[in-house]
């Protein structure tokens, strides 16, 4: 009888450490899980007692690739807790910086982490030797995205200019026009990215699941919106997230699991695509057609393709918002908005590259008293287990090496960010 017994210790090409464990007995799946073995990070404890103007600088250092996401969500939580109302120009600028991070993160995941599997390369380094033009294109697009963040927020990794209440520095019209021209010069690279992913073979898989994302009526929600469940088709206010999302401990994982209306749910690009497809930019919708991606898609392997659709969307939206800022004529001297109070509770929720991120802060006399952070990868963990359980029966008759590869690709498709940023060099002298 065919069986599946897969053990992958410290899965490669994901951020952080996790083990895949899948076992069957007499043709029945008896175990399927993705074990998180990283130690807890205790960021919530680190920001206790901190002032409102330093919290987001600390949380931005949680991660180097989602620094803008953590910064933005943190600032929103602070602003909501203390009644800080930002201006329209600040809101527009924040969105462009946010799109910049989506671009660079998605480009890197799609090209460096996911694509090697699809083309049979063990990692990006042999891919670089074999097809340097593909890797160079990825690096060009990343550089473009970094430029957005650098010009508008000081730098991408741990942005400088973003503060509760607005920005400490605004771009001039000349800088915005130059940035837009620079951005548009990469348009062909965006098209080539769609063509590349349209050419890659995708494993056949479908596992019906609940998708939870932000949603708003005006745009494909990244920066603002209510929480939306594809199961109930209802929205929940951000402040009430605990009525929708429940966190639980599991004995084989140092990270908590989340569930909403079922035992698990999915967040991320595919979830956003499924929940908000109708609000995508037309060029992004054409990209989805080219990629054969349709809403509702339950194939987790297509999450990378959903990221490519979002690359197109964020590219177009960035250009449009730069035009809007130019039209608005930015007030370069606008001061930071002040708080209405120094005590209160506020929640910030944004769609960072990997999915829904929540920061929940309670301030007392201007200092953080309590905090809770729920990271998108944490939200996906229970669904990863469910996906492995669903995939295992379908691969029982395949050779072991293929079983293992498909399970690795399945977890990688989520673009998990498990540990965030502990990177130590380990060397020996030659």
């Amino acid at each position: 009888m065919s069986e599946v017994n897969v053990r992958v210790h410290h899965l490669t090409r994901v951020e952080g450490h996790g083990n895949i464990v899948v076992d069957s007995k007499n043709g029945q799946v008896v175990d399927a899980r993705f074990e998180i073995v990283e130690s807890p990070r205790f960021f919530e404890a680190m920001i206790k007692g901190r002032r409102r103007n330093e919290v987001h600088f600390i949380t931005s250092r949680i991660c180097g690739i989602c620094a803008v996401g953590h910064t933005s969500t943190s600032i929103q939580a602070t602003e909501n807790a203390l009644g800080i109302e930002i201006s329209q120009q600040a809101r527009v600028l924040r969105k462009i910086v946010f799109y910049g991070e989506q671009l660079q993160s998605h480009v890197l995941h799609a090209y460096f982490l996911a694509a090697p599997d699809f083309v049979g390369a063990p990692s990006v380094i042999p891919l670089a030797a074999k097809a340097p033009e593909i890797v160079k294109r990825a690096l060009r697009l990343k550089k473009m995205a970094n430029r957005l963040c650098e010009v508008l927020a000081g730098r991408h990794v741990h942005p400088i200019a973003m503060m509760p209440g607005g920005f400490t520095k605004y771009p001039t019209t000349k800088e915005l026009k130059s940035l837009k021209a620079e951005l548009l010069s990469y348009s062909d690279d965006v098209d080539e990215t769609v063509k590349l992913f349209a050419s890659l073979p995708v494993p056949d898989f479908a596992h019906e699941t609940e998708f939870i994302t932000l949603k708003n009526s005006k745009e494909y929600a990244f920066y603002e919106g209510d929480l939306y469940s594809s199961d109930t088709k209802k929205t929940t206010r951000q402040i009430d997230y605990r009525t929708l999302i429940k966190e639980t401990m599991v004995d084989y994982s140092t990270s908590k699991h989340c569930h909403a209306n079922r035992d698990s749910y999915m967040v991320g690009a595919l979830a956003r695509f499924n929940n908000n497809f109708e609000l995508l930019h037309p060029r992004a919708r054409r990209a989805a057609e080219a990629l054969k991606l349709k809403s509702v898609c339950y194939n987790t392997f297509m999450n990378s393709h959903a990221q490519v659709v979002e690359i197109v969307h964020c590219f177009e939206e960035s250009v449009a918002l730069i035009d809007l800022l130019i039209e608005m004529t930015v007030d370069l001297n606008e001061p930071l908005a002040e708080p209405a109070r120094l005590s209160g509770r506020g929640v910030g929720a944004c769609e960072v590259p990997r999915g829904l991120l929540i920061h929940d802060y309670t301030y007392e006399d201007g200092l953080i008293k309590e905090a809770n952070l729920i990271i998108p990868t944490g939200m996906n963990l229970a669904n990863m287990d469910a996906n492995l359980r669903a995939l295992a029966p379908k691969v029982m008759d395949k050779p072991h090496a293929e079983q293992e590869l498909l399970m690795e690709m399945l977890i990688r498709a989520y673009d998990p960010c498990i540990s965030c940023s502990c990177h130590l060099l380990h060397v020996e002298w030659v």
Partner: protein
Amino acid sequence: MTEDARKPLAVIGVGNVLFGDDGFGVRVIWELQKNPPSGADLIDGGSLGLDLLDLLQSYWRVIIVDAADMALPPGTVKTFAPDDVRSIAPDDRLSLHSTDILGVIELGKALGETLADVTIVAVQPDFVGPKDGLSDVVARALPAAVEAVTLSAGRLQGR
């Protein structure tokens, strides 16, 4: 970047300041900012990942300050070139979220890029884990690292 557009020298501190001694490189930059070596750009690299490749293409020479497990007593500061070592990192991966200096250099070479001449100034860490600050023994190594960077910067600029 065209050859003419390359800048002469950068000192880049990498690491996560929320992870104890992992943040050593960034804290060295913060010290250097009080009395910067002349002719060098100081860069707080934080947890930058592949962005390092961009910096290696933007400068002729780069000094990277980092924590490194070199099997030496905690607090030891060493200056070396990438060719003096090989990586024995537990996982063979190029992370997007953290700075694997040797992996980034390898990728740059695989792409046929001309990279900056790299000098690494590293400290042997004592504690790497959730902590906003250095361990005592590594904090005492800050002046030695600042001096090592300043000497290297002078030597690289022919002084």
